[in-house]
């Protein structure tokens, strides 16, 4: 005797019973333009959505989106699974260690949730071009680096062309660190973008070189001494790999000797690894909360069944539960979405190198290797090698020599996929 066919079992009216209450019924707090019924349901079930990152947030996001009716989900992640991921990246098992996160996550979700297609890409976000990103209606990021967020933000925000509404792609961005997290919505050209809030990012702990070299006091100083000073001395050709247990053992040994010399206690294997990899412990609950918040926003944006958040929520959970939701303002001179150029003030007798140093120091630009040019000429280009050599002499020339007061300079940098316009004004 054969039993009922799968199609009957997956009757959407039954399966999505809870979801459809929001999509079949009007409500006083629905978003403007919400029309309940078949069209909005079909839209939700058919659009393409991209999840960037298949780690702590990514796993939660994929689950949440799949169980919210999205059926065509793509996921990008360049990493493979590590044993330390298993405490929260619940789509992975011990036997998956070493495999691609994106591929393993996709496999698990598709096996668990019928009718959803997850298309993984095991690689970098920079490996894909505008055509790739153009296919998505919404992009959700569960990343762990400022650089990757800046890249996606700049790429997607710049894709938006007012004359072609399909190029408008909301970005939902989530981030977590221990008990803290945030989720936000970026609507290109309408709300603040990621670059607008760059100076809000806290920099990781660094220790002064003189402390590391001469006056260590903490076990961290001893570990940094071993990794930053001793390792290059002993292995000038070899790069220190924080994931190689042999390397960590070597560091542990050297750091322990140094610690003993200075009567410092506390050097352990896990501290050594933590310092070298700049690890901040991650907990499952924060990821669950932030990812769910992002997925909720995706649901609301895709259907209009309720209003999306406006536009940034911060969460802290170590002392009670606390959220702070506010509207982050656009920066007028944002290099990505702003209409106005950044104003830089510098003394005309300063050198071009001084100007470059200034740009690298500024928290709101965070450039790594800036190249500068004016409308008419290249001031200093980091690449290619011939051009770098040709423009290098400019570094010691004065600003007065190279530019006029208020002149526009275009800056490009590996941290930003677009160019940044600034005007240089003379002080003093």
């Amino acid at each position, binding site marked *: 005797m054969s039993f009922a066919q799968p199609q009957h079992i997956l009757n959407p009216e*039954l399966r999505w019973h809870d979801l459809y*209450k929001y999509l079949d019924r009007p409500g*006083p707090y629905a978003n403007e333009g919400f029309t309940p019924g078949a069209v909005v349901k079909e839209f939700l079930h058919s659009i393409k959505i991209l999840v960037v990152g298949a780690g702590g947030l990514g796993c939660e996001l994929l*689950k949440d989106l799949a169980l*919210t009716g999205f059926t065509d989900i793509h996921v990008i992640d360049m990493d493979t699974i590590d044993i330390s991921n298993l405490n929260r990246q619940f789509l992975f098992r011990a036997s998956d260690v070493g495999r691609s996160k994106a591929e393993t996550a996709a496999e698990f979700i598709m096996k668990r949730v019928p009718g959803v297609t997850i298309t993984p890409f095991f690689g970098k976000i920079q490996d894909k071009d505008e055509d790739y990103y153009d296919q998505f209606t919404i992009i959700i990021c569960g990343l762990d680096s400022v650089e990757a967020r800046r890249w996606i933000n700049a790429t997607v925000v710049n894709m938006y062309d007012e004359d072609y509404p399909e190029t408008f792609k909301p970005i939902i961005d989530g981030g977590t660190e221990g008990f803290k997290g945030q989720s936000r919505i970026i609507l290109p050209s309408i709300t603040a973008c990621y670059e607008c809030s760059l100076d809000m990012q806290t920099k990781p702990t660094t220790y002064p070189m003189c402390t590391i070299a001469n*006056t260590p006091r903490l076990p961290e100083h001893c570990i940094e001494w071993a990794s930053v000073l001793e390792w290059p001395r002993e292995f000038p050709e070899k790069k220190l790999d924080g994931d190689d247990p042999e390397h960590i053992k070597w560091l542990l040994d050297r750091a322990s000797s140094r610690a003993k010399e200075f009567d410092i206690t506390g050097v352990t294997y896990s501290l050594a690894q933590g310092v070298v990899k700049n690890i901040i412990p991650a907990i499952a609950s924060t990821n669950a909360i932030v990812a769910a918040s992002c*997925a*909720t926003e995706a649901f609301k944006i895709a259907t209009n069944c*309720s209003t999306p958040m406006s536009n940034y929520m911060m969460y802290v959970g170590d002392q009670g539960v606390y959220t702070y*939701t506010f509207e982050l303002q656009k920066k007028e001179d944002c290099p990505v979405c702003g209409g106005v150029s950044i104003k830089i003030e510098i003394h005309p007798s300063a050198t071009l190198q001084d100007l470059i140093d200034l740009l690298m120091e500024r928290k709101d630009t965070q450039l790594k290797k800036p190249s500068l040019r004016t409308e008419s000429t290249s001031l200093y280009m980091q690449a290619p090698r011939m051009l770098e050599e040709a423009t290098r002499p400019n570094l010691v020339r004065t600003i007065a020599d190279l530019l006029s007061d208020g002149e526009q300079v275009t800056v490009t940098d590996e941290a930003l996929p677009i160019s940044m316009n600034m005007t240089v004004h003379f002080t003093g």
Partner: protein
Amino acid sequence: MTVVDARNVEVQDLGHNFFVTKDHLGQSRGKTVTELLLELNSEVAGEYVQKDPAEIIANSPEFFDQFTLVIATQLDGESVQRLADVCWEAELPLVVVRVHGLIGYSRIVVPEHTVIESHPEQIVDLRFDCPFETLRQFADSFDLESLDSHSYGHVPYIVILLKCVEHWKGLHGGALPSNGTERSDFKDLIRSTQRPDLLENQNFEEALSAAYRAWTPTTIPASINAIINDDRASKLSSKTPNFWFIAKAVQEFVANEGQGYLPLPGNVPDMHADSDSYIKLQTIFRAKAREDAATVSRRVQALLATVGEPSDRVPQDEIDRFCKNAGYLKVIRYRSLKEEYHPSSAKSKEIGNWLESDPADNIGWYIMLRVYEDCYARNKLYPGLSSEHLENDAAALRKAYENFMTERGLNASLVPDEHIEEFTRAGGSELHVLAALQGGLVAQEVIKLLTRQYVPLDNTVIFNGMKSIASVYSL
């Protein structure tokens, strides 16, 4: 963990429950969920009980005696109240969770929750105004005048501040800088000890930044005084938890050996200094902390003896942690659900005030959740479940709401009518995303309750998924 659920896996579950699959349709939901959850962590043991929680609560509440903590999700209002009474009697922590469309709710209920390790941002207790003997000697051992420039630039800022405080006290009859002018003068005093030839001077910059610590007298925070003088600390018995024995011992320490001060935590923040001086400073602080902890320990043992308990009942490690965190202890005495619900003790007036100052306050959704359960209790029907008579359902909900407000002496116009419509629209739906979010919040609170680390919320959190705002209330 034990999962209690009477139902079998249905198609509706496939739309929002990650721990069931279509292959499990028709099978026990509790069994299925337990099996799939256990895959996440091989060190977890799990069981299921195929029974209706409401039935167990009504007929065999002794079932809950075996647990350390109970989490109740989507339970009807009456069962929740009964369960809360059962757990309260047994001093068993209970966490109530609900989701309703885009609204999430949790309530923690337990008579008392004590926390030693609340994990404050920083534990700083440097005793500038009352240096203990070895610290004073250490500071005195520095003859600043005689030091060469390099050494001068590596004197720990604690020593610099100690010397400045001592000097100031000498000139002001033992008093600390106590107003704006004096504080400014104190900072000038610090600056005057800098050598003009030293441009580096990071230790003096640190001294200036930390100057406020030097002029703030070392005191015991009011909340800590309340804890160590609490009734539970004074009235010890063999049944009293360890926390209170140590609290009493610390109270005695403060009144005697501590000379009015808490046991020293003993940590020293990192600072610009030569390694030798820094390590010496750390050693001095650690030694004093150990000494204080040992004294507290002796007192704990004496107290245990007075009630006939074995002297090793309280582990040394617990005493050490208590002493280290003495300035940051937390004791939460939750209000019972009975107190929250009963009109004579409910915080109706506060609720009225919150809504009057902000009609959009999330407490409006709390009222909706309460009223929703009242509606069910009255009519054996949840409004909004079926699309057929939404208007009637909204009317029923509105009636229940009006009764609720009248019973509490509150104006029925306080909650916007749109809330009632929206709540009916949501019709008891369990959206996965809200369940996941509320689940994440609750999971963390449960971990805090079980580990007694970090501080759990007191006592209700509402998450509004429309505005993306969480609000905490003590109801």
